[in-house]
């Protein structure tokens, strides 16, 4: 009770007297935590949804059989006639675009009759059936099972049974009739289309193949034994894995992306931590006399420490509670952006539902209270050390801190060296832990170097400032140097936000420039074709075979290069296997290779049997180098492929293995192409040929892009991908600018006597306003200087360590000067604007009251 009373008098009352300060801390925590929460929720929803329908509809199976290019129907038969009591469920898993809405949905095909019988048997044997398994379509639709146009959908896709739906599958539109609905009990995430396997094989061009065979095996004699038994009957190129291994592989693939995004989301919180530290420090300095008095009246050091930490915890708690709805709201916007990125770079994704679970609440509370308490530790400790005979003036206190700036600068140098050292260590389990350590050390080094920087710059600049901007500028500059600790923390907070903006800006700008340059060499064709529908890194619908020939025969077309892509897994991670006509076209002719060998030499080698080139992200993930041998399951065989070279690639993060078309056709004889690159004859007119291709493709749903279109589209996707990072930085900057506004408010409160005095000494009220605005401007300039220096160093770590270790891309360093100048000017202006309200308050102070109040 006594503690509560003391807490109330020492902490709560001052907090209530300064609602602006209290509100500022709460808002800083709330914004920081809400960003963390939003990214956590959104990345779970965006990245987690890829397992959605495919897996929720997979039922309670144990094993899955897959093969690159599909599993032959015969294997389904072989498994079905084995003398074991196993359930065999072949499936086609593809995507279809609902033409009316443009929505791309999973297309799942099952052997409806077999499934129905199998489940009946199972139900008879065991009443405890998994409620999520596929329920056989209801009887009213079952009689249509042999109709080629029969589909079953989720309820949102069709109004009633019997409705017609046009689906775009590969490059063909087909009309279907809804014969029933997927039951609610299946708990499908999003929409889905089901059809019979025979119809699907016809529609998707996978005649004679299925995508996956799911197997349910009896409990005895054990999972491993069953795996061995079944492995023995399968061809070597056909894979047998535990069910869900694809999901696990996808999760592994996305982990670096999610991890890095998560880390980025903590930036606003870090900036918030600086501001909490600053606000509580100011509060401690301001209450030193009170603390001394309370100590003299019998309070122990621990009591004081606990009181200030409890204050921080309360602020953290309130901020975290506010962050829950705010984070949920932010997540709604973030999830769309993230889903686009996941789709473009990784895998088909559909935003899942956002749920504010108990875990989210715990995360918000732990992060909010944690960051507030940790930020308050140092000032709270300082408060606990205030002696009962406290009588030190603020001037003397600041002077003590000023003396320590040299020592701090040396520590900063040591930390910077440690950062350089940490940047040289490799990733741990694919995560650039030392890269992040290096970044943290740099931020710490910067924070410690800032007092020296502020003192040096303000000392040197004060005379010059007086000359050019008047006495107010000199007073502002001296005041910043005089309140060195407060200024340093403010500059550290704002400069950290600016540094993150600068570093991410440089990284993204460099990346963008690198991709643009790369596209110059990688997109030599004049026109590109792909099947209509949403593009995604893991979907490779095909184009009708005869279209390629028709296009090749058109006047003005010099050649057509076919690119075919397949989804494969290598070392438990998804990879895109591609084949290209490297001899025919100019494809890859000007590609850059890590070996720096001329492209024509590398491509000549690629024509040799079982040769492959791999992309840089693949090489990085799988530690592959030129000369290594990859063993890939192709068709029914395990094929050993020699890596001829590694090429730079920025198309996606999954990684590519590229073979010559002649090589891949030996193992996967399907000649269909996923994309076409059309090269025009020198005299041909682009628009004329484009129109001719359109006419030729009248019966195929393909999209035709000119070289310029495709570059534009690529850059659009690129910018969309990084939009979330800009949003996160903007929030960090907002938190920092809020901090500056709050700090300027407390500066006005703390120095009101000084402002009053200046009025007595002849200052006009406009001079007081100018003083505050110049102070805000100086904080902005100092933060920009420190932020840019730190930002450039961080960008080096981001580009050459964190990005390289996480994603494996080589990014050429590039200065996005215009963007940086714009952003820095924006921050500077925002900082000055943040001074307007405090300046107005200072201007309105009654000099008599403030000078005589002590």
């Amino acid at each position, binding site marked *: 009770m006594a503690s509560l009373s003391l807490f109330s008098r020492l902490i709560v009352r001052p907090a209530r007297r300064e609602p602006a300060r209290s509100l500022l801390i709460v808002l800083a925590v709330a914004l920081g935590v809400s960003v963390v929460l939003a990214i956590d929720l959104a990345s779970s929803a965006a990245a987690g949804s890829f397992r959605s329908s495919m897996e929720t509809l997979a039922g309670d199976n144990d094993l899955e059989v897959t093969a690159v290019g599909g599993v032959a129907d015969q294997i389904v038969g072989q498994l079905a006639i084995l003398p074991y009591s196993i359930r065999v469920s072949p499936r086609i898993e593809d995507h279809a675009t609902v033409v009316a809405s443009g929505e791309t949905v999973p297309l799942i095909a099952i052997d409806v009759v077999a499934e129905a019988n199998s489940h009946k048997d199972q139900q008879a044997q065991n009443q405890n059936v998994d409620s999520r398994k596929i329920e056989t379509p209801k009887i009213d639709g079952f009689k249509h099972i042999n109709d080629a146009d029969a589909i079953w959908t989720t309820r949102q896709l069709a109004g009633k049974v019997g409705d017609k739906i046009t689906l775009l599958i590969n490059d063909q539109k087909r009309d279907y009739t809804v014969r029933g609905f997927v039951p609610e009990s299946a708990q499908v995430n999003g929409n889905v289309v089901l059809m019979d396997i025979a119809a699907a094989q016809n529609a998707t061009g996978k005649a004679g193949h299925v995508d996956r065979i799911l197997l349910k095996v009896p409990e005895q004699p054990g999972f491993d034994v069953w795996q061995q038994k079944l492995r023995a009957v399968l061809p070597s190129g056909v894979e047998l894995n535990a069910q869900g291994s694809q999901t696990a592989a996808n999760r592994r693939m996305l982990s670096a992306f999610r991890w890095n995004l998560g880390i980025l989301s903590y930036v606003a919180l870090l900036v918030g931590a600086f501001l909490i530290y600053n606000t509580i420090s100011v509060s401690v300095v301001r209450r030193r006399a009170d603390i001394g008095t309370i100590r003299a009246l019998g309070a122990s050091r621990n009591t004081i420490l606990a009181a200030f930490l409890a204050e921080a915890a309360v602020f953290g708690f309130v901020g975290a509670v506010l962050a829950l709805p705010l984070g949920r709201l932010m997540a709604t916007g973030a999830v769309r952006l993230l889903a686009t990125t996941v789709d473009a770079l990784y895998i088909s994704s559909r935003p899942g539902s956002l749920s504010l679970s108990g875990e989210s609440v715990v995360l918000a509370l732990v992060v909010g209270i944690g960051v507030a308490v940790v930020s308050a530790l140092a000032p709270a400790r300082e408060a606990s050390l205030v002696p009962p005979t406290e009588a030190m*003036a*603020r*001037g*003397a206190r*600041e*002077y003590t801190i000023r003396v320590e700036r040299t020592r701090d600068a040396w520590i900063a140098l040591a930390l910077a060296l440690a950062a350089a050292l940490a940047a040289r260590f490799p990733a741990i389990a694919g995560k650039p832990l030392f890269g992040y350590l290096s970044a943290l050390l740099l931020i710490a080094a910067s924070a410690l170097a800032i007092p020296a920087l502020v003192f040096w710059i303000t000392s040197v600049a004060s005379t010059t400032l*007086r000359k050019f901007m*008047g*006495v107010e500028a*000199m*007073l502002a500059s*001296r*005041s910043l*140097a*005089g309140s060195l600790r407060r200024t340093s923390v403010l500059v550290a907070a704002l400069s950290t936000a600016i540094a993150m903006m600068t570093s991410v800006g440089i990284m993204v700008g460099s990346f963008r420039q690198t991709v643009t340059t790369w596209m110059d060499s990688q997109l030599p064709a004049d026109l590109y074709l792909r099947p209509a529908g949403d593009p995604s890194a893991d979907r490779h619908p095909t184009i009708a075979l005869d279209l390629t020939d028709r296009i090749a025969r058109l006047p003005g077309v010099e050649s057509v290069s076919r690119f075919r892509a397949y989804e494969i897994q290598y070392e438990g991670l998804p990879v895109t296997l591609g084949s290209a006509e490297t001899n025919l076209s100019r494809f890859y002719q000007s590609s850059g290779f890590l070996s720096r060998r001329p492209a024509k030499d590398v491509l000549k080698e690629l024509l040799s049997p079982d040769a492959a080139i791999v992309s840089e992200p693949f090489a990085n993930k799988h530690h592959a180098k030129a000369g290594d041998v990859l063993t890939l399951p192709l068709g029914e065989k395990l094929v050993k492929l020699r890596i001829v070279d590694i090429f730079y690639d920025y198309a996606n993060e999954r990684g590519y293995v590229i073979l010559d078309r002649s090589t891949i056709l030996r193992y996967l004889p399907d000649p269909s192409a996923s994309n076409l690159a059309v090269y025009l004859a020198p005299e041909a007119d682009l628009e004329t040929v484009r129109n001719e291709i359109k006419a030729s493709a009248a019966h195929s749903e393909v999209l035709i892009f000119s070289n310029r279109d495709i570059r534009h589209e690529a850059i659009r996707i690129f910018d969309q991908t990084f939009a979330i990072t800009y949003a996160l930085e903007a929030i960090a900057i907002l938190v920092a600018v809020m901090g500056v506004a709050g700090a300027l408010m407390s500066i006005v409160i703390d120095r009101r*006597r*000084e402002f009053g*005095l*200046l*009025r*007595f*000494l*002849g*200052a*006009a*009220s406009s*001079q007081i306003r100018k003083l505050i605005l110049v102070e805000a401007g100086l904080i902005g300039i100092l933060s920009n200087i420190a932020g840019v220096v730190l930002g450039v160093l961080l960008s080096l770590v981001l580009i050459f360590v964190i990005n390289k270790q996480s994603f494996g891309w080589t990014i050429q360093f590039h200065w996005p000067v215009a963007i940086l100048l714009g952003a820095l000017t924006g921050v500077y202006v925002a900082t000055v604007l943040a001074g307007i309200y405090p300046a107005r308050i200072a201007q309105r102070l009654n*000099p*008599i009251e403030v*000078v*005589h109040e*002590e």
Partner: protein
Amino acid sequence: MQSAATEDPISRLLSVERVTKEYKTDGEPVRALHDLSIEIGSGRFVALVGRSGCGKSTLLNLAGAMDFPTSGHVLLDGIATDQLSETQLTQLRREKVGFIFQSFQLLHTLSAIENIELPLLLAGHGNPRPQARERLVSVGLAELADRMPHQLSGGQMQRVAIARALVHSPRILLADEPTGNLDTATGNSILEELQRICIAHKTTILMATHSAESASFVDTVVHMRDGHIEEIVRS
């Protein structure tokens, strides 16, 4: 009307005419000065003596055009302060008024000489250093020009504050308990300094003080009580 110290109109610098000043504290009006009149001529050293709350500081603020009467008028060098705009008031203070405070009120972030320069800089002077140095020399602290306030003793700080108050050669110096934070010996030396300035520069000094001992340094003592002038004693 309260008692007044009538001066020769030609040498009159400060005229306080039937001034009443009311404040509001917690919504309740509090009368700090009540129908008070006084006239002070150039070159006079006047002490306002009385208990806390008797209205001394209020009178100083009115005299320095930092505050305005609820009724009545204050004329500084013949100019009614309540008739001036904000800009004109600032100009008036810059030219004619200097302030000294009990707690010195030096800026921690400026050295002694920079503190003294401040009024001139605020008034827009380009090169105030020679004047500031001259004032510092006149208060006997020439060698301490570059010291920061926390490196000075209380007496030294008050001398710097006096130099600052005089740097722009004001017609009137308003001192609010200038010796209140000093020991007797140092306090007396400050009063001697003020006395010397008053004589040497013909600067009018109006000083609020608790101390009756100050009377020996001034030429007029105004005794105040509850917002009124009780008695005026000339030496």
